[in-house]
């Protein structure tokens, strides 16, 4: 997919039965990003109410440090970091898929209102399971692992069907790229209104904690939040990578894809479902984190300079969310912001700039 001659590398097994075409630049960028994510992950684990030196973090991970340090690293800080990596990757990948499928740089799950729809679904499950457990962490581990992800998934798919259905009809003179943004933001208001309402049914003391479902936060994430998003990513990321060739064809234009033998409607259905499932799982783990899915793919594309960046977008999402979470914990001395507030502060102006630059 790269225009440079010799930029692609054909790797084959000696028998020649299995061969993979690798874009050299993309592979290089992916490995470099992987290193960046690893470094940020260590940094994120070292930061906390108390700074742990890097060597202590590493020995804590290996279990060779004293018991207090090992406990802090393994049970409190590591799950948070892992959730950040997984959620960021899921959002980045979901954004890359939706942007490639719609050929619209603004159509990411967060801008489309799918992230807030998933948030509403997750909160609906929490409410029906018992008002007192609204908010994060208050919910029983079983609920976090099974019930909330299912609710978020249902919310994500329902809201996605709604926004894509509405956006498929023409709306005045607005080009399709911008139409979905307007519809998405209006639906966003509705879903966040529903979440807000649902939270007032809960305990007043949970007010500050409720921020997780409205803005997205990684505070207090434990291993029970890792399961669903980790599983989703483990299954869906390889699936997405397998479908990357037909996706690249669709990115060139639907007619071309059909000529190339791609069954476009089926591919769309599969990949949209995949993208919104990833977004739903991300929300179930960390709440409605906005703008990571919007920003990771274009940033990744800028570095790889080729087709739809899937793996690099996922890594970029992880790097963005880790950075946002570290900043959220240390931007204000003595207070901790939700990571979603940081991504929104950076992402909303970025959306505005992208909009103003977009061609009609």
């Amino acid at each position: 997919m790269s225009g440079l001659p010799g930029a692609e590398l054909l790797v084959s097994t000696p028998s020649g039965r299995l061969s993979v075409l690798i874009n050299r630049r993309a592979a290089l960028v992916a490995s470099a990003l992987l290193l960046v994510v690893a470094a940020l992950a260590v940094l994120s684990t070292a930061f906390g109410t108390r700074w742990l030196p890097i060597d202590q973090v590493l020995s804590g991970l290996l279990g060779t440090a004293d018991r207090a340090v090992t406990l802090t690293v393994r049970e409190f800080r590591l799950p948070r970091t892992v959730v950040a990596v997984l959620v960021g990757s899921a959002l980045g990948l979901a954004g890359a898929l939706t942007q490639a499928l719609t050929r619209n740089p603004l159509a990411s799950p967060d801008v489309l209102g799918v992230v807030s729809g998933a948030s509403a679904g997750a909160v609906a499950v929490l409410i029906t399971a018992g008002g007192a457990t609204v908010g994060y962490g208050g919910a029983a581990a079983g609920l976090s692992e099974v019930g909330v992800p299912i609710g978020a998934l249902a919310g994500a798919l329902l809201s996605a069907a709604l926004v894509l259905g509405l956006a498929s009809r023409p709306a005045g003179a607005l080009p399709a790229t911008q139409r979905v943004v307007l519809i998405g933001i209006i639906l966003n208001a509705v879903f966040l209104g529903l979440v807000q309402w649902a939270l007032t049914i809960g305990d007043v003391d949970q007010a500050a904690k409720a921020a997780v479902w409205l803005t997205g936060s990684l505070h207090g994430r434990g291993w029970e939040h890792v399961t669903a998003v980790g599983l989703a990513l483990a299954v869906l990321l390889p699936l997405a990578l397998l479908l990357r060739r037909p996706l690249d064809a669709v990115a060139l234009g639907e007619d071309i894809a059909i000529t190339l033998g791609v069954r476009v409607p089926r591919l769309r259905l599969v990949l949209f479902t995949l993208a919104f499932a990833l977004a739903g799982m991300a929300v179930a783990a960390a709440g409605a984190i906005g703008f990571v899915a919007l920003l990771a793919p274009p940033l990744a594309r800028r570095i790889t300079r080729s087709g739809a960046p899937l793996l690099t977008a996922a890594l970029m999402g992880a790097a963005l969310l880790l950075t946002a979470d570290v900043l959220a914990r240390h931007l204000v001395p003595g207070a901790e912001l939700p990571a979603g507030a940081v991504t929104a502060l950076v992402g909303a102006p970025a959306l505005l700039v992208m909009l103003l630059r977009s061609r009609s």
Partner: protein
Amino acid sequence: MTLLRERPSVPPAAGQARLGLGVVLLLAAVAAVAVLGLALGSQALPLWEVLAALRGQEAGDASIIVLEQRLPRTMLGLLVGSALGMGGAVAQSLTRNPLADPGLLGVSAGAALAIVVAAFAAGVTTLAPQLLFAIGGAAAAGTAVLLLGTRTAVGTTPQGLALVGVAVSAVLISVASTVVLFDAQTLDEYRFWLVGSLAGRGMSTLTTVAPVIAGGAVLAWIASRALDAVALGDDTARALGVRLRRAQLLAGTAVVVLTGAAVAAAGPIAFIGLAVPHAARALTGPRTAWLLAYSAALGAVLLVLADVIGRIVARPNELQAGVITALIGAPIALALLRRSRSGATV
């Protein structure tokens, strides 16, 4: 000169008598929802008890509920609703854009951000200075959206301008919600205010905001004649002798004052400014003065109704009026978006 004093020719409007009758009917509707606002809530009161409490013949619980809680709340709802309705009507006429709602154009978000920043940076928590900040913030945000919208390719269509507006709103609201998160103590109060709510406002809020909204209404009424001409296009309006800049400034000030006051009193309530003028225009035709009167009455009815619904559906808790208007208003916004064509005048 006499020619210029006459109204510019506009498509045939409904007869004055019919429009006058409509106002009477709308005022009856306002009175009806006001009674609902007094009678319904977490505890429903029979009508005769409400009336007795209003006349001061009733002592005890009912009297306290009606006079001290529901009366100021209902009156504030009427006032804020009418301000939002009029603000939307003027904004739509001024920009000739059917999607120009102060909520969609970032004006409400600007007012909200200014209030939040003033509270946390300067400790401003009393209503009178908050009003000033709200109006200033509304003016700044509205100007920014209009400038960004008209200087770029996106903003040339009505929907494009709305799009720039919602994006600017998203920026402003993300800053406001972050600022609110800094202080856990006031989070609880502002978190409901940021949704838009009429709950817990006393008589003092009402008396502070009322003159400001009245002033905004007067400005809007003065601008209404020029806006009739503006509807025909800038050039035609100039040819008809309208001083365009002055008219735009006047109408813009009216929008900012009405919206700023509404936001200071009840938070950024969405969609009333969008939906109400459309309904009103269907009844009145294009004359701006009548449009203002109908929008004010319909906005008042809608907001109080939303507040009453919010008190009933989630008993014993409350659904904020802003949530209800978002749920009712979003489908209307989507329908308008679908219908409106580029370049179409209102």
